[in-house]
């Protein structure tokens, strides 16, 4: 597709009277005309080709621009995050949060240690009870055998 001309009169004048601006000698007129028509066709073809290349280049450039805008936005967001982190470190907020977290974890560790000790104690008590149960069962079985032997 050809781009619109600023001065359309040039084309219209050519179409209406192609010979108006030409003052060629009569015998070589037709040959000269053919040569100019071919030249115009070649120029139009070259123009079309040039515009096609320009369109392709424009599309490619647009794609690159969009890609770069996306990259800029990503870097802006990353920069903002890093600035926030930096501000946190500068204000001491990070060390405060770290200290608070350590105190929290110390408390959790304390409670867990207490639970572990309680479990250990209950396990030992259970083992003792189990031993006592086994001992009593053996004693009961022995007594039962004695009773059965007497009867």
């Amino acid at each position: 597709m050809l781009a619109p001309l600023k001065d359309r009169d040039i084309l219209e004048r050519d179409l209406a009277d192609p010979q108006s601006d030409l003052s060629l000698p009569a015998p070589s007129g037709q040959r000269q005309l053919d040569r100019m028509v071919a030249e115009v066709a070649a120029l139009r073809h070259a123009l079309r080709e040039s515009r096609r290349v320009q369109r392709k280049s424009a599309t490619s450039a647009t794609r690159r621009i969009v890609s770069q805008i996306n990259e800029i936005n990503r870097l802006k967001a990353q920069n903002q995050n890093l600035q926030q982190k930096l501000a946190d470190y500068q204000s001491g907020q990070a060390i405060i949060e770290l200290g608070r977290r350590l105190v929290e974890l110390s408390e959790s560790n304390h409670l867990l240690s207490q639970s572990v000790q309680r479990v250990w104690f209950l396990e030992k008590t259970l083992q003792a009870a189990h031993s006592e149960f086994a001992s009593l069962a053996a004693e009961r079985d022995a007594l039962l055998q004695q009773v059965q032997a007497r009867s």
Partner: protein
Amino acid sequence: MGNSELWAGALSLLLIHHETGCPHSALNAARLLDRIGEMENLDDATRCLCERASTRLSNGKELSHACAA
């Protein structure tokens, strides 16, 4: 001493206490935690947390790591 300096000190002493079992570090950490707990711009949950930690450290009830228990 600023807010973050107190926390940094308490954090450091607590780590030393956890690492070495040093009782002096525990007592000093407890003192710093008391001072942190007295600050006005502290939320109630953190204040209670600091008080409980200070009490544990002062009484020598801070146990070793639960995994080693």
